[in-house]
């Protein structure tokens, strides 16, 4: 992380190369796995019963891949993200399956689900890093940004002096377009967009291999959203980390993701490239979600979204969870679930 560019250079840096769908597929095929989830189940143990928040999740995240996860509220997308990073707290438990992490230094793969707290702690920020939706809730409101940055940097590399850590913190802030002197500010003195960008800068402090982003732009307006996305993509292209990006905004995911996962009722209902999801989504839910976003450049026609409401996870049907809302459901869909 010695090659940080000042903010102005980032803004004027060349746009990352625009790939075709074939180039994206070829890049992913050539890139080794970084994180592999096998048959992952996450359950919330509640008084009302066991809530199957994620079921049978199989996923391979490649190095440098941008993976989008889309779905409605309560589809299990944030639960999945927390489980991949093993950040979930009771009542959520990983009730089945495993997550394996393949370090980029080609040391032995490690199973996240069975790592000790201490091993996990070493890997947080340096390998696995997180950007949450509500920046204000993540940053400590009564501690200056500087201490929050230097804490993270020195925790993971105690040999870094205070001065060097401060300098690096300033560089990180500038990287996301915030002047370094704002390190002296308290989080509440920054605008919502700046807080969110400060959090992104913080997530990159220890040069992670993967950054989990949970709705990082939902709380800001479209212009700030575009600025934040552009910065994320610039940094990603330069530093090469992988991103798992969770949001309900499928149109945004289509623009940035190498691959997209569509979740419904705690399960993956479809996985595909942005082009596949846009042009030829197979699952009726994917198609419904895809046509829930009014277009900007295509002609306007009457859209209907998806009638009905998301399923109650405590009373999931035997068959396909989407069947009660599905325009093409048959008797078979109600009786059996297909994978």
């Amino acid at each position, binding site marked *: 992380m010695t090659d940080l560019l000042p903010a102005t250079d980032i803004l004027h840096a060349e746009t990352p190369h625009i790939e075709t769908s074939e180039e994206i597929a070829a890049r992913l095929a050539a890139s080794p796995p970084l994180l592999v989830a096998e048959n992952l189940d996450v359950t919330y143990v509640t008084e009302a019963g066991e809530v199957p928040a994620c079921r049978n999740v199989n996923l391979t995240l490649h190095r440098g891949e941008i993976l989008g996860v889309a779905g409605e509220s309560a589809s299990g997308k944030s639960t999945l993200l927390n489980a991949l990073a093993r950040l979930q707290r009771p009542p959520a438990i990983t009730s089945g399956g495993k997550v394996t992490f393949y370090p980029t230094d080609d040391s032995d793969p490690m199973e996240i689900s069975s790592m000790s707290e201490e091993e996990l702690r070493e890997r947080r920020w340096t390998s696995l890093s997180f950007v949450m939706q509500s920046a204000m809730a993540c940053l400590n409101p009564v501690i200056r940004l500087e201490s929050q940055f230097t804490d993270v940097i020195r925790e993971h590399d105690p040999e870094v002096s205070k001065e060097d850590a401060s300098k690096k913190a300033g560089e990180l802030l500038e990287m996301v377009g915030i002047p370094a002197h704002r390190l002296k500010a308290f989080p509440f003195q920054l605008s919502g967009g700046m807080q969110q960008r400060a959090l992104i800068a913080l997530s990159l402090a220890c040069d992670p291999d993967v950054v989990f982003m949970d709705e990082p732009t939902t709380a800001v307006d479209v212009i700030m959203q575009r600025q934040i996305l552009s910065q994320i993509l*610039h940094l990603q292209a330069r530093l090469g980390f992988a991103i798992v990006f969770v949001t309900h905004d499928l149109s945004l995911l289509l623009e940035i993701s190498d691959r997209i996962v569509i979740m419904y009722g705690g399960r993956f209902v479809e996985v595909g490239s942005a082009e596949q999801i846009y042009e030829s989504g197979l699952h009726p839910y994917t198609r419904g979600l895809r046509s829930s976003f009014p277009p900007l450049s295509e002609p306007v026609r009457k859209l*209907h979204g998806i009638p009905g409401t998301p399923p109650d996870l405590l009373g999931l049907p035997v068959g396909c969870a989407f069947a009660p809302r599905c325009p093409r459901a048959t008797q078979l869909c109600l009786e059996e679930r297909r994978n």
Partner: protein
Amino acid sequence: MTDVISSARDTREVVLQTKNLKVHFDGENSEGKKVKIRAVDGVDFTLHKGEIVALVGESGCGKTTLARVFSLIYKPTYGDVTVLGQPLKEAARNERKYYRKVQLIFQDPFASMNSLKRIVHIVGRVVQIHKMAGRGAAVRKRVEELLGHVNLVPAEKFINQFPTDLSGGQKQRVAIARALAVEPSIILADEPTSMLDASIRLEVLNLLSDLRDNDGLAVLIITHDIASARYLSDRINVMYGGRIIEEGPTEKIVSDPVHPYTELLIGAAPDPAHYKGSGHSAVQASSTNAPVDNSIKMVGCRFANRCPHAISRCVDAPIPEYVSKDGDRRAMCILAEKRDDFINPNDPALPGATSYTEEQL
């Protein structure tokens, strides 16, 4: 401005109009010095019967402040506001009567309803207070009608439920039913779908559109989502730094914007057709991210410091309001001079030109 050239929509009844409306607040800048914050700074706005007008712009552009003037929360500092042909000052004297004509829908249906009361109470209370029906059974019947009107059917199922039993979209429809209880002429909707899941957003948008078509309702919808605004509205007002910088029929604004800010706003919105691999880049060279500082007095264009086309004229002199030749569009940007379809109605060379000076306080 529209005095010079009349437009077809002028024949419809105007329900809401402002002329050079200003709302200023006293505030402090970062050094603790007292400053005047020009949240709304000279807005001409018109809403007709049976029309959905969208107000779009980024956070802090003044769009909510404008709506709050119409909802009697803020008082105008300067300028005229007319509501259903009556000056706002007169109309606001009797608040209950005023809210019978103008109703609000808020962003967060979770916060705008008492979660300890049943739907029949939440909607019925409005019916009672505004004496829209008799008592007891009549109120209940009216609530059922209203729920039916917003497609919450069967109404008997929903009427005894609590807000927590409903999904976000259903709750927002209850909020709309409650607004409709007084049979208003105008609905002000502040980001009514931004808290909702994408799949149920459309049901709320389609409902508002049906209410316009079937009941002749006038709707002001505030949003930063230009795709929703395009889907729903007849006209778009783009607001920046307390001013409406471009206004006109939705399709023309979206497909052929005049003001660089409008262009920026449209370009920033995610477009599913620009999926990765389609040859479009999600990365956009954004202009500096300096937020608008409305406390600085400014003669020219507030967007000039972010604008790629800005020249000295943009900051040195007031920007005239250019009008399209068909009278249907307005834009406050000198780029309109380069277009054949726009004229400057204040150009002294033009017959019947009105002299317009920026009114000072």
